[in-house]
């Protein structure tokens, strides 16, 4: 008899894990709350460090999932822990008896309007990283800017936003987006306001170098507040900590690099299962080294950003190891 595996979340992690598990011969059911598969990846235009088209990556991920039962526009209504399995009722009325559960619930972007001093939702020129990707995809419009600024760490590394942790991907995304903007509007001045640039991955540093060569200006210091000038442009106040001086820059577009927060729908599922979360709000794993895919519950596994901010390659790795852990678990059983 084929074991049932339920995967919650149809983003990169869920897709990759489901395709591997289905090849192993399991009966895989994938639940996605949105109408389309792909999670945040579906909303992105290009990916750092080499500008790979998100659409292409997503297509190839979906292509591999042949044989997986996908329920989109579907949410988990309730989960019950049975003796050696999980009884899951979905919002489309289907009940699944799953031998293993994989939480690939990912992340939500930090709600940028919470940092009201940056004026998201108040000033027209203030947008988020997600909005900018939509613009690159041609689904969002901005006026042709003379000057553009990027604010790193919005809702990350910020005690006041209740998140002292780093979101890991925003630095590289910002540099990538800054280059993209400079390519789109060659005349525009582009500024990046950063705390420190965390360009840790392979080729990331090259991206940074490229940006500098393109004339993007990096200012080390946080933006304190954004005001509107009498002409309706954005007056950005920040501190340049390298020259130890307060600075003011007038911009037309300000992009807020919203960080990663635990996904709300993931939290709802975890709450029903009494899963513990760490101080950052993401699920806690069984340990911090050897069993990163395991939870404290038998037969419940994690992959991707459900356990903290991750880059896409990390997420895909996790999906693969989660598939292996699940296979191990079910074979032993």
């Amino acid at each position: 008899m084929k074991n049932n595996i339920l995967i919650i979340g149809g983003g990169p992690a869920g897709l990759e894990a489901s395709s591997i598990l289905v090849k192993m011969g399991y009966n895989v059911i994938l639940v996605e709350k949105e109408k389309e598969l792909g999670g945040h990846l579906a909303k992105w235009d290009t990916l750092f460090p080499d500008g790979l088209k998100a659409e292409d990556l997503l297509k190839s991920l979906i292509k591999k999932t042949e044989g997986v039962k996908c329920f989109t526009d579907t949410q988990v209504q309730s989960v019950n822990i049975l003796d050696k399995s999980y009884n899951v009722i979905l919002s489309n009325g289907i009940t699944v008896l799953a031998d293993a559960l994989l939480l690939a619930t990912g992340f939500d972007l930090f709600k940028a309007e919470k940092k009201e001093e940056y004026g998201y939702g108040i000033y027209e020129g203030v947008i988020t990283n997600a909005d900018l990707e939509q613009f690159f995809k041609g689904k969002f419009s901005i006026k042709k800017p003379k000057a553009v600024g990027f604010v790193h760490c919005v809702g990350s590394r910020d005690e006041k936003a209740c998140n002292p942790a780093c979101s890991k991907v925003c630095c590289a995304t910002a540099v990538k987006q800054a280059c993209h903007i400079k390519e789109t509007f060659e005349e525009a001045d582009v500024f990046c306001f950063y705390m420190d640039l965390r360009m840790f991955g392979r080729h990331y540093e090259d991206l940074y170098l490229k940006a500098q060569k393109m004339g993007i200006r990096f200012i080390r210091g946080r933006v304190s507040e954004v005001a509107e000038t009498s002409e309706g442009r954005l007056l950005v106040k920040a501190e340049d900590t390298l020259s130890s001086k307060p600075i003011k820059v007038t911009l037309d577009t300000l992009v807020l690099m919203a960080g990663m927060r635990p996904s709300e729908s993931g939290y709802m599922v975890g709450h029903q299962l009494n899963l513990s979360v760490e101080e950052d709000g993401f699920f806690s794993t069984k340990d911090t080294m050897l069993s990163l895919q395991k939870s404290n519950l038998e037969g419940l596994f994690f992959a991707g950003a459900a356990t903290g901010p991750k880059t896409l390659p990390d997420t895909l790795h996790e999906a693969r190891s989660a598939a292996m852990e699940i296979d191990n678990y079910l074979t032993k059983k």
Partner: protein
Amino acid sequence: MTALLQTLYTYSQITPEGIIDRYPNSYNHFVLPFVIGISFIMVYLLIGLIRILYHLTAEDRKRLFISLFTPKTALKNIKDIFCDCLLHTKIWKRKPLLGYMHSAIAFGWFMLIVLGHIEVALFAPRHLDSVADGALYYPIFYRFFIWMSPEHETLRGSLFFFLMDFFLLYVLSGIALAMYKRVRSIALGMRHTTKPSLADRVALYCLWAIFPLRLLAEGFTADLSGGSFLTKPLNMLFRNFFGNELNFLPTWWLYSICLGLFFLAMPFSRYMHILTEPLLIVMRNAGLKVRKPRKGFAEAEIYACSSCGLCLDACPMNTQKKNLKYSSVYFIRFLRRHNEKKINEIADKCLMCGKCYALCPVGVNSPDIRRAQRETLNHKLSFDFTPMDNFRLKENSEESAEIMYFAGCMSHLTPKIIKSVTSVLESAGKKFIFADREGGICCGRPMLLAGRTEAAKELISKNKKMIMESGCKILLLSCPICYKVFKDDYDLKGIRVLHYTQYLNELIEKGELKVSKGSSSMVYHDPCELGRGCGVYEEPRNVLRSIGELKKAEKERDESICCGGSLGSLTLDNKDRGKIAESSINNLTAENPQSIVTACPLCYRSFREKSPIPVKDFAEVVCENIKSN
């Protein structure tokens, strides 16, 4: 007047018939403990008074002296002393049972002393003449020293007997409540009470014992010296038990010892406030302010603290029990003991919301003492405001407007407030100068709160120059923190300083701004600096009532709970602030309003983090409900 006094005096010199001193020289050894105690406390008070006066600045001393002879303040002094020290009207208003307890002990005891002296003045006046005749103790132990022939009982005498017994009963009822409060304070409306120190305990138990002992002592002698409805029956009861030979000296000894011990412990205990509160009232009415945290006026405040602990329940930090130690009562206790380390920690932790001051029955301005304490450390920190010299008012070149809008740093962190204020002004057709549209200088209040008075003065002078040069008539503020400092510390002659709640209320009342009434319900949160700080409670409520249904918070106006975001605290961390915000929100949502409205950018920010229902700014709500013509 003098003639009347003369007659009274000569009249009182005549000893009525039938009253005989039982002891020829009116002395017995048992009075010694009391005499020692009362002498000690009098000397202590005298030295303390000299110390306090010595530490006042010459200007303050002069001001105090003049106020004593200004009829208006002198009358106010008398009224305040009577209401606050004896009747405790402030406690009555908030917690009647607690008020009764305090006034029973204070007013009752006061009346016993006064009536006792009048009695002596009427019936044995020579004993009031000099210390040698026992003036110090005789009126207190009057009943011990006299023998009254039962045939000569007069109506006047009986009236005094009755009054004395009546007030003794009044005090005893207060003492009984006090004992009950020790066991179950919540019954009298107090969730937390202070931990008493050793001296507090000694004084407390003596205080509890004094009046029952007095009852016993006077009961023992009631057949000799007379008595009324309490002491007479008690005397008969004793006779039934002990026969006719009553050995009453031990109770009188005990009574005297308790009084003496009470006075000896008094300066080191909370009960010092009984004697020092009048001094504080007089100094406060003279308009004195705290200049140093431990000397002069502050010392009068410190010794006037009754350590009652009402500030424990008032303090917003005390939603968590671990923060009880930062309450004003302990701050003042440590100040009194010169415990520098703890004083500084507590001084820095406080949110300066002023609720403890608002609810303090004695009126000890502990936020101000904390500010003075911060000053002792922080005034040394250096500052450099040279970049400010380049600051110019950009919009000055445009046509001059009557109104200057100063948003302040905090409103700039909440641009929605600025947008709402400017658009409301525009819909009312008002021209205004936006003083800090593209950045400005801080109002100085945060520096003042942190005890950096010199730095604040610099900011204040720069801003003042800018405002005076602009030629505006109204200075409009959207931040209560700015509003308080512009109102209190700027001295802007000829310019009306208004918070936007006041100004919009005016516009609506004058009909210059029309709002439509909706059906949504809201609750208004009184920001600390606006409510307790500046006394603005009515104007915002007025406006909100004309916009929607205004619901009540569980505690509001001067009892409103700080949002936790106050700039006043220098060391409180985000977690603790979050807890305070939650408790404040719980207080606000008692009647299930649809939204919370506040009039301070800081409250707005703190609430938005935690609130389950929408949090709106006052101007935002007005802006949403403007009736377009």
